[in-house]
C-alpha cells in the first residue's frame, strides 16, 4: 500500500545523510527500548514457562528442575479436552458478540457522530480505566436474581429463570469487558475511509447493503482483523469472568490453569497447559489470518 509507494520514490533513504550504516544504527537505537521490553517481558517469561513445563512439582509445590514429558502426557488426564473446547467456543462467541456490538458502534462514531465524536470516544474509554474486576462485579450486581432479572422472570413466568451461572452471563461479561478493544481498531479504520467512495458506489447503482458489503467492509477489514485478534486472545485465557458470573460452572482453560498454579501449586503441570494454550491460539489465529487474506492481494490495489 503506502509502504510500496514510499519504496518507489526512495523517500526514507534520502532523508538520512551519510548513507547506510548510520541510518541502521539510528534505527537500532530507536528500536532498542521496545526490544528490551519485549525481551524481558515477553520472550523471557515465555521461555521460563516452557522450561517449567518440562519440570516436576516440588514436594511442597513449586518447581524442581527435571526433564520429563509427563506434564504434556497428562494435560488431558483430569479435566479432559473440554476446557480447551469450551474456551474456543466462548472466545469465538465472545469475538462475534463484540463484532456485532462494536461494528455498528464504531461505524456510527466514525461517520455519523460529527462533532460529538470525541465525547463518544471518551464515554467508551472511561469505564476501561476502572479495574476489570470491579467491572465484572458490576455485572454480578446487575444480573442479581433479586433485581432486574426478577422482572424478566415475571415476564416469562418462569420462577427458575436466572442468568448468573449460565454461559450467557459469561458471554455478556466477556463482550462487555473487551468491547473497547474491538471498537478502537474498527473506529480508526472506518474514520480514515474515503467517504467519496460510498457516494461513487451509490452513483453506480449499489443499494445500501451492497455498498456496505463491497466497499465499507473490505476497507474496515484490517481494523476488523486487528480487533478480533485483540479480543480473541485474552478471551481464551479468561478465568475471572467464568468464575464470578458463571459461578464456575463454565470451566475454561484459565480455570484449569488457576487450579494448577494456585490450588495444587503444581507449576509444571500448569505450564504445560499454558504452552498448549499458546499453541492452540497460534494455530487458530494463523488460520484466521490466512482465511481472511485469501483473496486479498488482488482486491487491495483496486480499492486504494
Amino acid at each position, binding site marked *: 500500500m503506502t509502504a510500496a509507494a514510499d519504496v518507489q520514490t526512495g523517500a526514507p533513504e534520502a532523508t538520512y545523510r551519510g548513507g547506510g550504516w548510520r541510518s541502521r544504527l539510528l534505527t537500532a537505537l530507536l528500536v532498542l527500548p521496545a526490544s528490551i521490553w519485549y525481551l524481558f517481558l515477553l520472550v523471557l517469561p515465555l521461555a521460563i514457562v516452557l522450561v517449567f513445563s518440562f519440570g516436576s512439582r516440588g514436594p*511442597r*509445590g513449586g518447581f524442581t528442575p527435571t526433564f520429563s514429558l509427563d506434564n504434556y502426557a497428562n494435560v488431558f488426564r483430569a*479435566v479432559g479436552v473440554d*476446557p480447551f473446547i469450551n474456551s474456543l467456543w466462548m472466545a469465538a462467541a465472545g469475538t462475534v458478540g463484540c463484532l456485532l456490538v462494536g461494528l455498528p458502534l464504531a461505524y456510527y462514531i466514525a461517520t455519523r457522530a460529527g462533532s460529538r465524536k470525541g465525547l463518544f470516544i471518551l464515554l467508551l474509554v472511561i469505564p476501561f480505566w476502572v479495574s476489570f474486576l470491579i467491572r465484572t462485579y458490576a455485572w454480578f450486581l446487575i444480573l442479581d*436474581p433479586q433485581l432486574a432479572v426478577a422482572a424478566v422472570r415475571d415476564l416469562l413466568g418462569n420462577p427458575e429463570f436466572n442468568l448468573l451461572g449460565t454461559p450467557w452471563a459469561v458471554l455478556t461479561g466477556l463482550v462487555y469487558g473487551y468491547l473497547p478493544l474491538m471498537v478502537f481498531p474498527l473506529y480508526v479504520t472506518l474514520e480514515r475511509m474515503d467517504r467519496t467512495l460510498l457516494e461513487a458506489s451509490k452513483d453506480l447503482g449499489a443499494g445500501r447493503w451492497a455498498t456496505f458489503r463491497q466497499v465499507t467492509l473490505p476497507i474496515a477489514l484490517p481494523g476488523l482483523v486487528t480487533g478480533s485478534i485483540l479480543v480473541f486472545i485474552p478471551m481464551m485465557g479468561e478465568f475471572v469472568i467464568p468464575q464470578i458470573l458463571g459461578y464456575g460452572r463454565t*470451566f475454561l482453560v484459565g480455570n*484449569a490453569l488457576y487450579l494448577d498454579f494456585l490450588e*495444587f501449586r503444581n507449576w509444571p503441570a500448569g505450564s504445560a497447559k499454558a504452552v498448549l494454550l499458546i499453541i492452540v491460539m497460534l494455530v487458530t489465529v494463523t488460520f484466521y489470518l490466512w482465511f481472511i487474506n485469501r483473496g486479498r492481494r488482488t482486491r487491495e490495489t483496486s480499492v486504494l
Partner: protein
Amino acid sequence: MTDQERIQRMARRPINRRGFLSLMGASAGAAALAACTGPAGSVRPSGAASVAPSASAGGGASPAASFEVETELLTYNWSDYVAPENIETFKQRFGVENFGYDIFANNEELLAKLQGGATGYDIACPTAEYVTGMAEEGFLQELDLSRIPNMQHINPTFRKTAWDPEDKYIVPKDYGTTGIMYRKKLVPEPVTSWREFYDLTKGKYSGKTVFVDSMGDVFPFPLKMLGYSLNDNDPAHLKEAGDILLELAPHVHSLDSDTYQVKLANEEAVLCLGWTGPIVDLRADPATADTQYIVPSEGTLYWLDTWVMLADAPHPNAAYAWLNFIHEPEIQKIETESNGYATPNDAAKALVDPEMLADQAIFPPEDVIANLEGSLDHSGVQQRADIWAEFKSKIGG
C-alpha cells in the same frame, strides 16, 4: 492527483487527526489526575498511617523478663481476624507504635509469598496443616515456651497435635469445624449426617447446594461418609470418594468460599458445606435466623488456625509479647466474641458470653469433639488433585 487531493481535503472533517490527538491528550491528563487521587493501594491499615501514635508510657506493666519490646510488630494474617481493641490494648501496654497487619487471602498465598522470598514479618497466622511444610522449609522459628506462660491455659486437645507433635512452632489461635449449614425454614427434613446431606443434595434440593471452594474441606465429606479417615490416601478409597463427588457434581449449585452466606440468605441455596464463621451474622438477622449448623454424625475435620513466629522475625521480643498477650483470658475472650470462632483457651472459654458457649456450632460439645479429625496437607496427592479438578469442571452439569 492534485484535483483528487483537493476533493479529499474538502471532504475531510475538521476534527480529524488533530482533534483526535488533542482528545487523547485530554484523556491522558484526566487519567493522570485520577491516578493522583487514586485508591489506597495497600489493604493493610498500617499502624503508623491509620492510628495516632500511642502514648509511650506502657504504664509500667510487666514486660517479659528482661527483654525489651521493640516499637514495631509486623503481622501477616487473614482479613479481620484480630479484634481491633486488642491491638490497641497491646500497643498501649507494650509501647508498640507500629502494628502492621498485612493480609493474605488463603494459605497458598502465604506460602507462595514466603517461598518467593518475602521477609520482614514477625508473626503469621497459617492454618495448622501448613505449619509442617513451612517448618520443613525453614520459614519458622522454634518457640521458647517459657516466654509464653499463658500457654498453660490451652486445652490439651490442642497441644502436641499431629501437625506439631512437640509444640515447637504453634500457638493455637482458634478452631472450628467444617460441617453442614442449612436454612431450617426451607429444609424441613432432618439433616444430621453426611449421608442425609448427600441424599438431599442429589434428590430434592438438586441445584441448591453450595460447597466451599476448598479441596481440603470437601474431601472429608465422602471419605467420612464411607467410614474412612479423612487423611486416607489409599487409591481405592480415594476412587470411591471421587465417584461420590462426581455423582454429585451436576447437582451442586456452585463452589464458593466467599459469598456462600449471601446465597443462603437470598435462598439461591438452601444447603451448604461450609464453615461456621458466617453463622453469627446469619442468626443475628431475623430474616435468616433459622439457619442451622451441624457437625455430621460420621465426623468431620476440625481446622486450627495458629500463630507462628517467622524465622527471620525482625522484632522477636514484640512477637513473644504478643503471643503471650493474646492468650490472657480476658484478651482471648474479646477475640472469641469478636471473631465468632471457638477458642482453645480454657480459661478464656469460661469467661465467654454463655449464649455463645451454648451455641454448638461454635463450641461443639465434648462427644462431638471426639469425632473430629485434624486434616494434614494433601495438596500434593495427585489423585486428589485430579478428582478435584474433574469435580470442579463438572459443577452444575
